[in-house]
């Protein structure tokens, strides 16, 4: 959800678009879209993670206007289904054997991906 492009929000299906409270969205995001893009804000994540002060400086809009844009997007995105942690497929669960069952056991099953493992020892 957070990687959704802001420009894609305005081309959502009509049903979802209705949930965006069209008026607010159009005023605060669509018209500001080009402004936000020039400030380097293209995705919902970037919009939410940039502090209003920073954004105001980058995009040359007032912090109040920026906050309004955030609110509009949040309301629009609020329509998406909430995901439970159980539903999310566990990532980084891949693991491979070291070649020895006893060492695998001590490591919690083997060498797991997505992690930094350190081997320390004398030269």
């Amino acid at each position: 959800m957070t990687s959704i492009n802001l420009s894609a929000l305005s081309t959502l299906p009509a049903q979802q678009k209705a949930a965006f409270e069209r008026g607010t969205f159009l005023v605060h995001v669509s018209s500001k879209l080009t402004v936000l893009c020039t400030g380097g804000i293209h995705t919902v994540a970037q919009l939410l993670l940039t502090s209003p002060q920073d954004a105001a400086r980058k995009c040359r809009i007032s912090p109040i206007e920026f906050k309004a844009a955030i609110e509009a997007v949040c309301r629009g995105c609020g329509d998406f289904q909430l995901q439970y942690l159980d539903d999310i497929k566990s990532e980084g669960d891949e693991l491979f054997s070291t070649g020895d069952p006893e060492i695998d056991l001590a490591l919690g099953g083997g060498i797991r991906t997505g992690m930094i493992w350190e081997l320390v020892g004398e030269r």
Partner: protein
Amino acid sequence: MISASGKTQLALQLSLFVQIAPDTGGLNGSCCYLTTSSKLPTQRLLQISQNRKALPPSSCSLDHVHTIAVPSIPLLLQVLSRTLKDFIQDSHTTGVKPVKLVVIDTLAELFHDAEKTTTATLVERSQKVAEIGSILHTLAAEYRIAIVVLNEVVDAFNRGRHCSDDKTDLSYNEQSRWFSRGDSVPGEDGKEASLGLGWANQVNARILLSRTGRRRYLVEPNMNRAKSQKIEVVSGQMSNTSVDLQAEDDDQSTLIRRFNVIFSSVSLPASLDFTVTESGISALQGTTTYPSAAPELFTLEEHVPEVSQRQDKGPVRPQGTPLEIRDHDTGPEELAQGSSVSDGVFPQDTEDEWDQYWENDEISSEAYLSVRDS
């Protein structure tokens, strides 16, 4: 056999096992092996793959171990953030075997410089270490690969405890005792991982490999002298290791090494004995021990006020005498191993004699401590 502690051996073994099929324990992946000062020991890699039954030539070959030299920190950063990233991306989209393992052998090597250690150089080191760590984490998470970084040990100095003036701050020594040192066998805590706590915070799991003074006679049919000497020639490593290899060969016993998971985000601390042979690394069956870290932490907390009151009397170890710690942590297992290795050289009642000796001992434990700490 070749390296002193076996860390390169384990890394080589991993770069082969990552290639095998998922139903046999692998990931059907390939490996990128980054070397800082040495070259990839291809012959040794070949030897492990030939001597290991679990590594079929059909699914595991040197073609899937890619290597590049990164002799400096800027080069490492460049390779990690550009070259390697592109390579991994390509391997995930087009390649037969996607990259699933990246090895850096050895990171500490890049931080060996002649410059005198000052606060400024330490700060610079921390910054670089954090930068490397962050790139590695991004790679690991984004492409779901395992990163294995090899590190070296430095001597650990056991200064008196609580030597820091600032009582609210934990001293480096106090922290590194938990995160950089092993304590599964006596003498293991004499060395600690290098690169400091900044690096310790970057890794998800730290495994300490060390030599022990113990040896074992292994029954292995293909363990003949000619082959062992071949490795020695091929490796062309430092002279002291070749000497050691010779010694190992002469009395036909194999040095036992210690594998110690100091911390890990996916498993409990554990340690075990292992040996390095022609077929790579194998654990000695039934030697795994799990230290009971929890009670020790509890006693530390419990005794903290007492320690601060008694500070004027010199350093105090809240857990009691070092001997008690040894007993508590590794005593029974260690003794059991000792007797099995030495084939009954020590009779069963040795343990009781020692107990008696220490009971009759006139010198207080504080006296031992003061000698140890001075």
